[in-house]
């Protein structure tokens, strides 16, 4: 099996999808000749040309609106938003249209569409090239939200997203684009949407996270193990619908829950997980549900490393709940 970075895995998935099915089309800013600002679409324009790999005018509204029109007509559009921070000029097309077309048309007009976008910090991009905006989409019924943290999941979940019928916001943690390589199957395969991944089994504290926080939590879990705390680490991967069963099963086992997200604290997805635990596993909880998160401030530039949770911050939370009595 070839080894790939996440960026290569995304690119490979797009190559596989386009070769498999000519309904798959790509559109976005700079995705053609340049191959995308990160290179995720490299080589595709050369192979498929302007009709299937479209460099668009600079309008997220236009990218998403036309993608909706393509999806309704039976294509499988995969629009790219250059940075997730720039999705808002097209937000209406996602929230009011893409997410609701199937429902509002009584099932007549499904709107398949996979919106790919690099998300989160890690490149010293300041404010507008670093935000984790998954909450906005998770609060929007009708969407699926996916965020892989490994090359294999990135490929398998991107393919699974393209070849199912609901609109998907596919968030690629840019900090992990070139974070390391993993063996990934060649050709077509799917990783099932909606299922969490057990990164590490344990029975002392449940840590739930996703995206770029997965390796941070792995490091923290490692350190916790050294200190005698056994961590069960779950990578959610799918944020809507999400694998509540997996989380609750683990919480019922450990009785201790730490949630880690890069997004601002208030109404980050950790809040939903905590609420679900407080609703369905209250009797198992033997310690406060701890949230480790970005702060309720805009994303900074110079102090990015202070803003984003690091292994130490996660470790402190693990130790706090582990010791709580």
């Amino acid at each position, binding site marked *: 099996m070839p080894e790939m970075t996440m960026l290569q895995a995304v690119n490979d998935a797009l190559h596989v999808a386009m070769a498999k099915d000519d309904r798959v*089309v790509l559109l976005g800013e700079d995705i053609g000749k340049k191959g995308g600002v990160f290179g995720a679409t490299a080589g595709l324009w050369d192979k498929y040309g302007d*009709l*299937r790999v*479209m460099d*668009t*005018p600079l*309008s997220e*509204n*236009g990218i*998403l*609106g*036309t*993608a*909706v*029109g*393509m*999806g*309704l*007509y*039976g*294509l499988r*559009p995969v629009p790219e938003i250059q940075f997730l921070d720039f999705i808002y*000029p097209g937000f*209406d*097309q996602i929230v*009011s*249209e893409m997410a609701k*077309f*199937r*429902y*509002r*048309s*009584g*099932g*007549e*007009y*499904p709107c398949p569409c996979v919106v790919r976008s690099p998300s989160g910090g890690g490149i010293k991009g300041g404010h507008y090239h670093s935000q984790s905006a998954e909450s906005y989409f998770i609060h929007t*019924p*009708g969407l*699926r939200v996916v965020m892989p943290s490994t090359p294999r999941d990135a490929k398998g979940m991107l393919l699974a997203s393209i070849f*199912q*019928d*609901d609109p998907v916001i596919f968030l690629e943690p840019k900090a992990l684009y070139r974070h390391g390589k993993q063996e990934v199957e060649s050709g077509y395969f799917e990783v099932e949407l*909606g299922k969490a991944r057990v990164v590490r089994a344990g029975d002392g504290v449940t840590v739930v996270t996703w995206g770029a926080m997965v390796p941070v939590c792995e490091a923290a879990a490692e350190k916790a193990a050294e200190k005698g705390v056994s961590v069960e680490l779950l990578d959610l991967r799918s944020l809507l*619908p999400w694998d*509540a*069963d997996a989380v609750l099963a683990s919480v019922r086992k450990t009785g201790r829950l730490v949630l880690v997200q890069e997004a601002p604290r208030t109404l980050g997805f950790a809040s939903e997980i905590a609420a679900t635990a407080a609703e369905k596993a209250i009797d198992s909880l033997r310690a406060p549900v701890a949230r480790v998160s970005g702060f309720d401030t805009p994303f900074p530039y110079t102090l990015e490393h202070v803003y984003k949770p690091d292994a130490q911050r996660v470790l402190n939370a693990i130790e706090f709940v582990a010791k709580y009595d």
Partner: protein
Amino acid sequence: MTEMLQVLDAATKAQKLPLGLTADDLRAMYRAMVATRAFDQRCMNLQRQGRIGFCVPSIGQEASQVGASYAAPLEDWVYPSYRTHSIAILRGVPWKTLFDQLYGNGTDVVKGRQMPNHFSLRAWNLVSVSSPIGTQISQAAGTARAIQVRGEKRVVWTWFGDGGTSEGEFHAGLNFAGVWKSPCVFMCENNHWAISVPCERQTASETFAQKAVAYGMPGVRVDGNDVLAVYQAAKEARERALRGDGPTLIESVTFRLGPHSSSDDPKRYQAPELLETWKKRDPIARFQAFLEKKKLWTPAWDKQLSDEIAAEIGKAVDAAEQTPPPAVETLFDDVYATLPPHLVEQRQAVLDQIRTSGAIQDTGGKFPL
């Protein structure tokens, strides 16, 4: 720039029937216009009687819509607005199907999920109507692009008002279609009002048609109360699109003779003289005069037509009204292709509540606009 295409007056004087249209064509157009007027009047009545919650009449705009849509064969996709049900009527959608939607009942195509006038009619290539103004414009451009990707020969039509031109959707949709040279006709009905805002406060542009200049496409201004002029402009735009010469923006200059919707009262913002002026240009009366001149119209035929339509509508209303509302559990369908676990759970909770605590009361509410 402010002149507009007109056909009806010249055609009235001419010998032959205009634009290659047959007597049957002309009668079919007239019928759709009259039927639309009857539908709108009936809907307003039903709303006043509290039998449906809301409606959006298109009175005064029948020529604009029917004229253009007569140039759009059924294989063309249409992205309608909430005020363009005449297109559904012209395409032959059964009255019952329309009234089911207005009642939001159990046989409504959209399962009672949208306000009245927000139709979805896939079998007639009419896309589900949205409320947010303008969203259909960029979508239409996308569908037109998809047609190019597939190498097919059909055209996409999208309908919006003078107000709709101000949204970013208009800008994006026309710009993308222009760059891609997609087969799309952008139908802007300038009915002089966006609720209470008059069109001259919508933009400083002298006409809406001239906005096409910004997107490198032709902009055509047409008398929207002249059904033949609109037909001609639309037909030419369609031919241009099929030739691969790209999109067209058509400004159809007309006037909203009724309120914005069943909840609006134009007297609060509209000068009565303006309304009177435009009433004199009623598109149905104008077309009727032409048909009469061509000996295609008689009072008897008109009466027969009206009676026929009234009877059909009456039957449909009765049937729709007697159809029970959608079942509670349908609330959870179609959010996704298949029901995910969290919706299974939420659905169960509602059903459980009804089982234990009884049916959930509908306490109503009244739409303000």
